[in-house]
C-alpha cells in the first residue's frame, strides 16, 4: 500500500490475505486517477450534467431561519450516494473490471450502484439481506429495472451486515473481473479514504454557498451518521475550520439505554469489523450485536474509521436522535418547508432543531442527505 490507511489508531486493512492485492490495485487506481485530468474531467462532467451538481443550499423559511439545508435530496438517485458511485464506477472502468458487486440495506446504495452499472455498462450484482428484500420491494424493483440482479442474503440476521459479509465472500473469489463498490466510508483501506474524497464535494460546495449566502462560515455542521459517508463528505472541508462545530447524529432508535439503537460511537467499543479498526456494537466476547433504527441507512453496527478518530480526538461531537425525534422532524420539515426528507436525514434535522432553540443566533448547516420517497409508506403507517 502507498498510503498508511489509518486515522489515528483506527482504520487499516483487516481482510483475508487473498483480498489484499485487489485493495492495492484499487488504491493505486485511485491515486493515479487523482492526477489524471481526463478522469477528473469525466467525473466532474457526470456530477454536473448527469447527477445534477451543484445541489442547492436552502435557508429555511418557516423552521428556524438560521438552519441551512444542503440539498443532497435533489441529487439524481435521491441521495448523496450517487456522488461516490460515479467515482468508483469510473475507477472500476479504469481497472478494466466488467462486474460490480455491492451491499445494500434499505436499497439506496443498491439503487445507486444499479444506476452506475446501467450508465457505465457493468454487470451488477447487489447483495441485500433477505429481510430487507421483503421490506423494500420497491427498491428491489428499481434495481432490477436498471438491470441489476438482487441476491437475497439468508445468513445471519439477514440485514445489512450480512449483505456486506456476502459481498466480501463474492469478492474473495471474483476480484479478477469484479469491483466491490462499497457503499459507505467504512470497510478496509482504501475505501474510507476513497468514499470520503468522492463525497467531500458536498462540504466543498456547502462551505462556498454559506460564505456566499451568509457571508461567513456556519457555527455548526450537522449530519447523520450510519456508516458515515454523507457526514464525512460534509465535514471534510470544515475540519480545518476549528471554529466550526462538527456534530454527527447517530440513530438512538428506541433509546440509548436499551439495545435497540445503532449508536456505534456513543455506545460501541473498540473492535475490528468489515476490514476496519473502529467502534463496534458488540458483546464482551466480540460478537457483533443486532442494531435497530427506524431508518435502515443508520442501522449498522460499525462506523467509518475517520469518525472514530474525529470522536476520540474531540474534533467532532456525536449525539443521538431517537426514532420518535427523527419522525417528528421528518413531519415538521414536510409541513413547514414542503420538503420530504429521508428518515436518515431527519435524525440530523432533529438535532439541528434542538440546537437552533438553544442558540438562536448561530448558523447551522444541516446535511439533508436524501429524499424521503422511500420512507413515505413507512411514515404513513407510523404517523397514522
Amino acid at each position, binding site marked *: *500500500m502507498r498510503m498508511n490507511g489509518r486515522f489515528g489508531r483506527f482504520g*487499516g*486493512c*483487516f*481482510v*483475508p*490475505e*487473498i*483480498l*489484499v*492485492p485487489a485493495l492495492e490495485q484499487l488504491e493505486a487506481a485511485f491515486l493515479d486517477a487523482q492526477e489524471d485530468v481526463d478522469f477528473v474531467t469525466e467525473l466532474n462532467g457526470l456530477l454536473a450534467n448527469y447527477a445534477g451538481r451543484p445541489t442547492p443550499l436552502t435557508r429555511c423559511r418557516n423552521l428556524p431561519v438560521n438552519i441551512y439545508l444542503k440539498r443532497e435530496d435533489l441529487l439524481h438517485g435521491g441521495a448523496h450516494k450517487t456522488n461516490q458511485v460515479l467515482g468508483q464506477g469510473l475507477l472500476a472502468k479504469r481497472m478494466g473490471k466488467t462486474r460490480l458487486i455491492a451491499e445494500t440495506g434499505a436499497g439506496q446504495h443498491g439503487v445507486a450502484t444499479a444506476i452506475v452499472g446501467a450508465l457505465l455498462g457493468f454487470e451488477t450484482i447487489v447483495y441485500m439481506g433477505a429481510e430487507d428484500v421483503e421490506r423494500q420491494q420497491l427498491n428491489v424493483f428499481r434495481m432490477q429495472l436498471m438491470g441489476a440482479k438482487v441476491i437475497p442474503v439468508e*445468513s*445471519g440476521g439477514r440485514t445489512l*451486515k450480512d449483505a456486506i*459479509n456476502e459481498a*466480501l*465472500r463474492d469478492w*474473495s*473469489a*471474483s*476480484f*479478477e473481473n469484479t469491483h466491490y463498490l462499497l457503499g459507505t466510508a467504512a470497510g478496509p483501506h482504501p475505501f474510507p479514504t476513497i468514499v470520503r474524497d468522492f463525497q467531500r464535494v458536498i462540504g466543498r460546495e456547502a462551505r462556498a454557498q454559506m460564505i456566499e449566502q451568509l457571508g461567513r462560515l456556519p457555527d455548526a455542521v450537522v449530519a447523520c451518521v450510519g456508516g458515515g459517508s454523507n457526514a464525512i463528505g460534509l465535514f471534510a472541508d470544515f475540519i480545518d475550520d476549528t471554529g466550526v462545530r462538527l456534530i454527527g447524529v447517530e440513530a438512538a432508535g428506541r433509546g440509548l439505554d436499551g439495545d435497540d439503537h445503532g449508536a456505534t460511537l456513543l455506545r460501541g*467499543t*473498540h*473492535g*475490528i*469489523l*468489515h*476490514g476496519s479498526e473502529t467502534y*463496534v456494537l*458488540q458483546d*464482551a*466476547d*466480540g*460478537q*457483533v450485536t443486532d442494531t435497530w433504527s427506524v431508518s435502515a441507512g443508520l442501522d449498522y453496527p460499525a462506523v467509518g474509521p475517520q469518525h472514530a478518530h474525529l470522536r476520540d480526538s474531540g474534533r467532532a461531537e456525536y449525539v443521538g436522535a431517537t426514532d420518535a425525534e427523527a419522525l417528528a422532524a421528518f413531519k415538521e420539515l414536510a409541513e413547514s418547508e414542503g420538503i420530504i426528507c429521508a428518515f436518515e436525514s431527519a435524525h440530523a434535522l432533529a438535532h439541528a432543531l434542538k440546537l437552533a432553540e438553544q442558540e438562536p443566533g448561530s448558523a447551522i448547516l444541516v446535511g439533508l442527505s436524501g429524499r424521503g420517497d422511500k420512507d413515505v409508506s413507512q411514515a404513513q403507517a407510523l404517523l397514522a
Partner: protein
Amino acid sequence: MSRYARMFERLNGEGAFGAFLMLGDPNLETSEQLLDAVVEGGADMIEVGIPFSDPVADGPVIQAAAQRALAAGVRVSDCLDLIAGFRERHPDVPVGILTYANIVVARTGFMRDAAEAGADSLLIADVPALEAERFTRDMAQAGIEPVMIAAANTPDATLQRVAGLSKAYTYCVSRAGITGTHAGGEFDARLIQRVEAAGAPPAVFGFGISKPEHVRAALDAGAKGVICGSAIVDLVSRRGDVVGFVQSLKAVTRNDSGAE
C-alpha cells in the same frame, strides 16, 4: 521444540493430516467428543475455530457451524476450556486456533489465555501480513505461534513477510474464494515452491480437501500436509461417521509416505 516441529519430525516426510472443527458446534459436550474422534481417526494436528458472528472468510458450511455454536450459547471462555481439556487428554497433538480479529482484540490477554489453555498456534483470518506485526509480537510474548496464509495471488514480497512473521506452518490456498466452496483437487505446486523459496514454515493446503484423491493431489503438489475443514464440519452437521471419514483421508498420507 514446538509440538508442530515435533510432529513434522515424527512424521518424517509422511504428510500431516489436520482436522478442523468449530468449537462448540453443535454444543460443548458433542464438540468435546468430536475433538477426540478426529484424533481417533488419525489426525496429526487439530485446527479449531472459535466462532465469530461475522466470518467473512468462511463459506456457508463453516458459517453455519459458528452460528450453531453461538446459538447454543457458546462463549470464548468455553472454547478455551475445550482446548484445555483436549490438551490434558492429548498432550502431544498440536492444536491451532482459527478465528477473527474482533474475537482476539475483544479479550484482554487472548494470546496468553490461548497459550495457557494449550493452543500451539493462532491464525487470524482477517489479519493479512500487512497488519500482522502487532499481533505476532503479542503471540511471541505469550508463547503461541502465528500461522499465516499464502495464496496463489500473494506476491513474493508478502511471502517474505510471512516467512519472517509466522511459525508452525503456512496455510496455503490454491484458488481464490472462501472455505468450503472449492470443487477441490486443484493444488498449485508453484505456490508450494514459492513458499519454500521464501523460507516460510512448512506448506499445508487448507482449502478444497474433501476426498482421498484431494489429499493425494495436495501432497503430490509438494505440500507437507493438508487441513480438512468444511467436509468434516458438514459431516458433523449430518451426524456422520467422523472417525471413519478421517481414517479414509489420513490413510492416503501413509500410503504416500515412501514417495517423498
